[in-house]
């Protein structure tokens, strides 16, 4: 049985609006996503750098990328991806 992506951590630059709770809620409403954690790394006049950790089963990264684009956010890098039967940590 294929488990797909179970966890992904993203480095994202977003505009200050919409605020973090709104983005987190919207991300968590994507199918197969069980939980979202957004941490603020740096704040600027118009933008925020954030780390977004998403957990679930068979996460569709393309849907996440599309949502980010819709919300005026840019994924700088995918910092972590976990796939498989077991959640492996470094």
């Amino acid at each position, binding site marked *: 049985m294929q488990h797909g992506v179970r966890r992904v951590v993203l480095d994202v630059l977003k505009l200050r609006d919409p605020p973090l709770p709104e983005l987190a809620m919207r991300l968590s409403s994507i199918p197969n996503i069980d939980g979202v954690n957004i941490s603020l790394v740096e704040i600027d006049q*118009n933008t925020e750098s954030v780390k977004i950790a998403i957990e679930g089963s068979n996460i569709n990264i393309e849907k996440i990328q599309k949502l980010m684009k819709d919300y005026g956010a840019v994924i700088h890098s995918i910092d972590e991806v976990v796939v498989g039967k077991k959640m492996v940590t470094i």
Partner: protein
Amino acid sequence: MNKVKLYIQVTHVSDIARRYFAMNGFDGSMTVLGVILGAWITGVKDPKVIVMTGFGACLAMGVSGFFGAYITEKAERRRQLRELEESMLEDLDDSLHRDASEFASALTAITNCLSPALTAAISLVPFIFSMFGVIPIFNSYIASFTLTSLTLFSIGIYLGRVAGENVWLYGIQMLMAGLVITIILFLLGEFA
């Protein structure tokens, strides 16, 4: 509905729409007050003249308010969007910020159009009744003057609430503006 809420949150348009509503609502009331007082001083007995003059002024204010606010707001929002694009080093054409920006311009324009028309229409209602023979013209003048004063006072109360300060003081300040125009017009009427 959620999208509308999101657009309002992103653009912070409620602040500016509130300002436009009060400012232009006040303008609408004052303009029609001027029309009504002018008609009273010159002894206009035909309610149709007052209704048509008042609605003409309302319509002009509404149309000018719509286009003026839409074009101004659109220009401002475009500039803000460009600033955001520069901050992100990214094109925001497909983002909700572009749609939210269009929405904010339209909402501001509609508010700017409807608020003077609404407050002006309130003052003209008694004359519409008079047109259909429901009440005599003299009573229309009294009723309209009372309604206009109440509208001005209500706008003041609303602004007092927005400021979180003494609402009665704000209400009275608005009424004073109406009183000033009344005194000036009666004085002009004396000399005319």
